[in-house]
């Protein structure tokens, strides 16, 4: 068991990366640490590993051996894949080379890289390098594996390769602490999720608790925003090109393919022909519980119908009706809300 008690870390210049963080890691647990950039989650894992000295507080690792997987892989470029995996056992643990290589091949098989044993790391893809990094870690028989954003430097396909390996380790009962930005993955693989904000642990609990019923507002905003695109139009001088760029980026990030055409068209039609600009307008685009693309538009200071208006542009209305599976208008206080579920009949993906 690893016991982190009252850990604080202050960098020169007064930046407080960690404020009184306490955490226990029990055998068999898979803990995901999530949170916005700069929340201190990487500092936490680096302090546990001993790469950084905390300003105060202690990390008690007992007699467990730790291993760490890095965001930048840090494979040894001067050694072949197999040598990367046997260097530690042979030089440090003084295991005979033949034995170490046999075990090394087993590990490479586990991460799916047995055929690359003799390759040099420079010839590997990022995902393969990261899997070498994991196998190298395992070669020292660690009790706990620490992951510092293991997939942040990888594209989607390579992320999937690495997630696969981590998943496999979780199934084998490996104790792990994973710092990650990938919420879906964190939710699937973890037994416990820790949400950090501004150097503190804000909320922790079972994945479904933290993701579905977050107790803290900060957690709720983080999780909601992670999966949403938000933008705002204050007047008719809105920046349509920025909205379009945001929509395209959102679609790319969420692998929504050419859905941006539909989202851009709905946004433009609403802005050009329906919304009355009685006050600021808030757009939110997200995937709803059924994994359907949905939009939520709030027009402030408005109490009259928007889409149901009698003098609506008929072509624009036909387009909206064609693109949306459902459009609901709701009045909440001074604001008029549109709840839209985007039609996926025309999905080409």
């Amino acid at each position, binding site marked *: 068991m690893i016991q982190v008690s009252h850990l604080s870390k202050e960098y020169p210049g007064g930046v407080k990366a960690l404020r009184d963080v306490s955490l226990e890691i029990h055998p068999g647990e898979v803990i995901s640490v999530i949170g916005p950039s700069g929340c201190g989650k990487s500092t936490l894992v680096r302090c546990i590993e001993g790469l950084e000295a905390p300003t105060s507080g202690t990390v008690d690792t007992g007699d467990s051996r730790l291993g760490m997987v890095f965001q930048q892989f840090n494979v040894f470029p001067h050694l072949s894949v197999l040598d990367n995996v046997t260097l530690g056992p042979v030089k440090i643990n003084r295991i005979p080379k033949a034995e170490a290589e046999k075990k090394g091949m087993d590990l490479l098989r586990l991460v799916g890289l047995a055929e690359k044993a003799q390759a040099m790391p420079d010839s590997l893809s990022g995902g393969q390098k990261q899997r070498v990094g994991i196998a190298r870690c395992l070669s020292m028989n660690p009790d706990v594996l620490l992951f510092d954003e293991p997939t942040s430097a990888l594209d989607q396909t390579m992320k999937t390769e690495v997630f696969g390996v981590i998943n496999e380790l979780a199934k084998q009962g490996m104790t792990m602490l994973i710092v990650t930005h990938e919420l879906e993955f964190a939710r699937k693989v973890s037994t416990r999720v820790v949400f950090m904000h501004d150097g503190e642990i804000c909320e922790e609990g079972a994945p479904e608790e933290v993701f579905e019923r977050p107790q803290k507002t900060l957690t709720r905003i983080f999780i909601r925003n992670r999966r949403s695109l938000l933008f705002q139009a204050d007047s008719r001088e809105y920046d349509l090109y920025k909205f379009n760029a945001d929509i395209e980026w959102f679609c790319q990030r969420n692998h929504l393919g050419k859905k941006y055409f539909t989202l851009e068209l709905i946004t433009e*039609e609403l802005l050009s022909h329906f919304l009355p600009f009685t006050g600021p307008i808030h757009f939110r685009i997200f995937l709803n519980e059924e994994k359907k693309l949905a939009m939520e538009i709030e027009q402030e200071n408005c109490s009259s119908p928007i889409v149901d208006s009698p003098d609506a542009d008929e072509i*624009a209305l036909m387009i909206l009706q064609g693109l949306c599976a459902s459009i609901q208008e709701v009045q909440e206080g001074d604001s008029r809300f549109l709840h839209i579920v985007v039609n996926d009949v025309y999905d080409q993906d």
Partner: protein
Amino acid sequence: MEVKITEQGGTMTAAFIGRLDTPASLDVTREVQPLLDHADRTLVLDCKDLTYISSSGLRIFLTIRKAAAAKGGKVIVQDICDDIRQVFMMTGFLNLFEVRNG
């Protein structure tokens, strides 16, 4: 957004290049004036390089069609992409225009 108008025989071709959204439609309305002036001929709306169209753009197409109908011309929409074809379909434009792909 750019509109290139060429004339060959009795046919006038307008090539639409880029995104025909609301901000662009103001300029485009002006630029298609020659088509409205010669609406008695065959007018080809070349959409090969048109990547996006909103209701404002469709309205311009509709204006051209109306002018042609009044002067006895003919409008052909040529080479529309799948996304725009969907829009044409949901607005009924597919029935209003002669659409040729190829």
